[in-house]
């Protein structure tokens, strides 16, 4: 299970000394269950620099949340076996003691969750929960400092009358305001790494737009590294610099947002793109689903995990797809673009077969470009 270290090329030339703030290498997360070990993530390698955003895409069970929780050290050591390397700001996190880990959590790295109503404690005031997050990493600060900081953060994330709303309980906030408060709590200690796990999935589109605006403003202001986990490719397109596509616990495609969303080379990514309609696309575009269901992690398919659902495996000679796991190799569009697929000519297949069905209007553009 070799995976190419994909970080060097992009990171090294920009910042020779420091390197990316978050570096994950060959991460593997296994949970023992009654039916045997379940490997939720394996061979995962990626990195995020400060000021950059990585989008992680995948379906439920693809390992996108599990891998980020491993970065935060949120898995219980007794029930999750984690191997590989996770370096946050140069510190190796895998195998770090719980107390050292606690110093990092909520301080150098923070996480915001999907359902803010469930993720905030229903019995404590918003202000109290923010103060707690501040005080735990500022032992010398007074209660009053913490309260001032909490109000300041609520104001920063755009909550009206923060000095009054600080004493509200989570249920008294609207959905959008709760997510803002969640973000305020995540950023209260000025973390260098922010992981947002489906931050807008439960919200209405206009509120989603507000929250995404806010996240982007804050990232610019705090210059933090951001990981955004989502299944919404539209959110990825507008927020992320790089994209990591995960399937059955592995990275199947990785590259810049433009590479992944305009010139994908892995049939699963094609499937994701073809199975969502678009508000502005041609109405002649076909909606083409990915057949079948996500695989079992307990008994993952042999070879390429995606092969039972792949409609392009007939273009690969023999039974390569079902017998041999493809390696994560550079794609044709650039060295920073990696894909895990046996297809010999993915670009050709995408342009001649897939694109005419899912985005007929783009085919003409493409042919003009190539001319």
């Amino acid at each position, binding site marked *: 299970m070799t995976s190419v270290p994909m970080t060097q090329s992009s990171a090294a030339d920009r910042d020779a000394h420091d390197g990316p703030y978050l570096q994950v290498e060959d991460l593997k997360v296994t949970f023992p269950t009654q039916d045997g070990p379940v490997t939720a993530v394996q061979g995962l390698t990626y990195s995020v620099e400060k000021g950059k955003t990585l989008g992680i895409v995948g379906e439920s069970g693809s390992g996108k949340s599990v891998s980020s929780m491993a970065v*935060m050290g*949120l898995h219980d050591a007794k029930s999750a076996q984690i191997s590989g390397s996770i370096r946050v700001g140069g510190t190796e996190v895998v195998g770090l003691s*719980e107390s050292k880990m*606690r*110093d*990092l*959590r*909520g*301080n150098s790295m*923070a*996480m915001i*969750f999907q*359902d803010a109503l*469930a*993720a*905030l*404690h*229903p*019995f404590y005031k918003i202000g109290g929960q923010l103060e*707690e*997050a501040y005080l*735990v*990493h500022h032992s010398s600060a007074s209660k009053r400092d913490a309260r001032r900081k909490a109000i300041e953060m609520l104001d920063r994330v755009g909550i009206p009358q923060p000095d009054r709303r600080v004493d509200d*309980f989570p*249920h008294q906030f609207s959905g959008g305001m709760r997510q803002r408060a969640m973000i305020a*709590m995540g950023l209260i200690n000025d973390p260098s790494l922010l992981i947002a796990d489906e931050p807008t999935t439960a919200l209405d589109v206009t509120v989603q737009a507000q929250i995404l605006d806010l996240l982007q403003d804050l990232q610019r202001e705090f210059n933090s590294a951001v990981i955004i986990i989502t299944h919404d490719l539209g959110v990825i397109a507008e927020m992320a610099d790089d994209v990591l596509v995960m399937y059955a616990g592995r990275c199947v495609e990785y590259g810049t947002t433009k590479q992944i969303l305009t010139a994908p080379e892995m049939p699963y990514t094609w499937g994701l793109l073809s199975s969502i309609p678009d508000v502005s696309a041609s109405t002649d575009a076909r909606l083409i689903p990915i057949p079948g269901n996500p695989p079992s992690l307990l008994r993952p398919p042999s070879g390429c995990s995606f092969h039972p659902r792949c409609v392009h495996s007939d273009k690969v000679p023999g039974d390569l797809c079902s017998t041999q796991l493809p390696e994560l190799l550079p794609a044709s569009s650039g060295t920073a673009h990696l894909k895990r697929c046996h297809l010999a000519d993915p670009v050709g297949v995408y342009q001649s077969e897939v694109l005419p069905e899912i985005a007929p209007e783009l085919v003409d553009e493409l042919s003009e470009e190539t001319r």
Partner: protein
Amino acid sequence: MFAYVVKRLISGVLVVTLVSIAIFLLFWYGPSSPAQPICDRETSNRCSAAKLEIYERTLGYDNPVYEEYGKYVKGIFVGRTLTIASNEYDCSAPCLGLSFRTKQPVKEELVSRIPATFSIAIGGAFLYLLFGVPIGVAAARRRGTVADKALVSSFLFISSIPYYLFALLTWLYLTITFEVPFFSDTGYFPITQDGPFKWFSGLFLAWVALGIFGCTQYTRFTRGAMVEALSEDYIRTAKAKGLPTRTIVYRHGLRAALVPVVTIFGIDFGTLLAGTIFTERIFEVQGIGWWSLEAVQGRDLPVVQATALFSAVVLIISNLLVDVVYSVLDPRVRLS
């Protein structure tokens, strides 16, 4: 909140009234004359039809039922004079009638028995909360381990024994078999008369029985509520903030887990305060529970009525308190 409490009190008064009417009617229309027990007692079981008639007449059982019920209610508020056979008894407000057996006002005996029952209830509940909740929390934190499984199954075994059997076995083993020093002389000894040590030693075994049995139940309640609370999203958030484990478990987990436990406890405790028949009988504590048992056996109508009313009032108040406490614990609950 205030309006809610007023509303609940009004409905509480209604319930108490209905309970009192129901008990009144049950005895009134029961298989034998309500005067029969007292007539039997006064005449040493030679109650003739003529004598029974005298008792019925003086006790007012020849009047219409609503009229007598009216007198009974009026007595509670302003007091009344009761006639049994040829003797007149003064019964000051709040008059709950005279005991057929002792001819004493029921109210006075009720008041004298409250300290015993309340002593048992408070001591027992204190013990089972003191041990049950922390053990439950500890089990929840170690759930799935051998220790947790052993604890849960042994506690489940204990709580599936009927309580009266459990209390009886506790008493038998501790006083007869092992003759535990100091504590074998069970019973209620008022602090004011016999001093704190006697009071404590007399009730100790009753507390132990109640405490162990309640502890097994509260461990399971707490464990269940805690397991649920610890799997909530906000616990993950607390961990992601970098809080120490102790803060996560107690400040975030236990706080939420306490809400269902407090709810169950409020109702349980109300039941205890209304009288613990088995505990009082087995450990010979002269409390309300035992008293009501004797009253039922002796068909002492006014005492049965009084104890039933008392438990109705205690339960209504404790339910109301639970609701108020609930709204304090959980800010999402608005009483209206």
